[in-house]
């Protein structure tokens, strides 16, 4: 059960002042918001689209759109969640355009049972990432997450990589909290299963 919050005790997020200044036409304030969130917005777009050019376009469009719609931002959610939602919508739209024959939605591929039940029970080596240099590790992580259905990797990206709360992830994706939780479980288990190929201890003395 969530703790009951008494009004007035919540800390005011520093973005609130920046957004207010940006609304009043302070360009420097908006620039600062862009600097704060450009990396996050780019990562989200790149994770969803898996295409650098698209991710760059989406990042730019998302900030320009945010600037246009700034008056509509009510402050009911965090500015960053609002931005992420704009970027997610743009990304999903872009993905749909690319795959003209196939519809892409957050519901796609959720029926798949792959990875929902763990099959690989090999322990991982201690600090397994240290067996690879930074470039190799990044390549492994990219390849692994690329193989997830878009709906799963989007939830994993927002919740686990970008550290949004479950509620914020649900809000950004237009999903219910239980839907986010079930996709998150499957995404985590599928990634775990795939990473085991690289990080798992060699199975010794076991029948093949």
């Amino acid at each position, binding site marked *: 059960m969530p703790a009951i919050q008494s009004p007035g005790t919540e800390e005011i997020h520093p973005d609130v002042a920046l957004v207010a200044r940006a609304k009043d*036409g302070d*360009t420097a304030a*908006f*620039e600062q918001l*862009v600097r704060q969130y*450009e*990396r996050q917005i*780019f*990562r989200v777009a*790149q*994770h969803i689209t898996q295409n*650098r050019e698209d*991710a*760059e376009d989406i*990042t*730019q469009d998302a*900030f*320009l759109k945010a*600037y246009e719609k700034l008056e509509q931002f009510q402050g009911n959610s965090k500015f960053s969640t609002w931005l992420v939602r704009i970027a997610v919508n743009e990304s999903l739209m872009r993905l749909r355009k690319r795959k003209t024959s196939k519809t892409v939605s957050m519901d796609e591929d959720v029926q798949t049972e792959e990875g929902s*039940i*763990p099959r690989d*029970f*090999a*322990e*991982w080596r201690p600090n*397994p*990432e240290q067996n690879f240099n*930074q470039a190799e*590790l*990044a390549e492994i*992580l*990219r390849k692994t*997450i690329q193989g997830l259905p878009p709906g799963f990797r989007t939830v*994993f990206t927002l919740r*686990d*990589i970008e*550290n949004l709360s*479950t509620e914020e992830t649900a809000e950004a994706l237009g999903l219910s909290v239980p839907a986010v*939780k*079930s996709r*998150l*479980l499957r995404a*985590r*288990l599928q*990634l*775990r299963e795939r*990473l*085991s190929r690289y*990080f798992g201890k060699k199975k010794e003395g076991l029948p093949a």
Partner: protein
Amino acid sequence: MTCTDFLAQLTDYFDGQISPELLEEVREHTSSCHHCEVVLDTTSKTISVYRDNEIYEVSPEFRDRLHLAIMAKCTAAK
């Protein structure tokens, strides 16, 4: 707690939203079930390896372009 029950609690476990009673049951289960102990440990490592390693970086060229576009938009809007 069965292995299926354990999996059903995994998300709440990682999100720190599990009740103390269920947390106790999860701990009891993983101390007696090696498979689930491995799943718990390696899933936790999966999350942290993605959290700790930035795999997509903004290029400096794009950052420059982005800021020029933003500035153009802001000045045009005034």
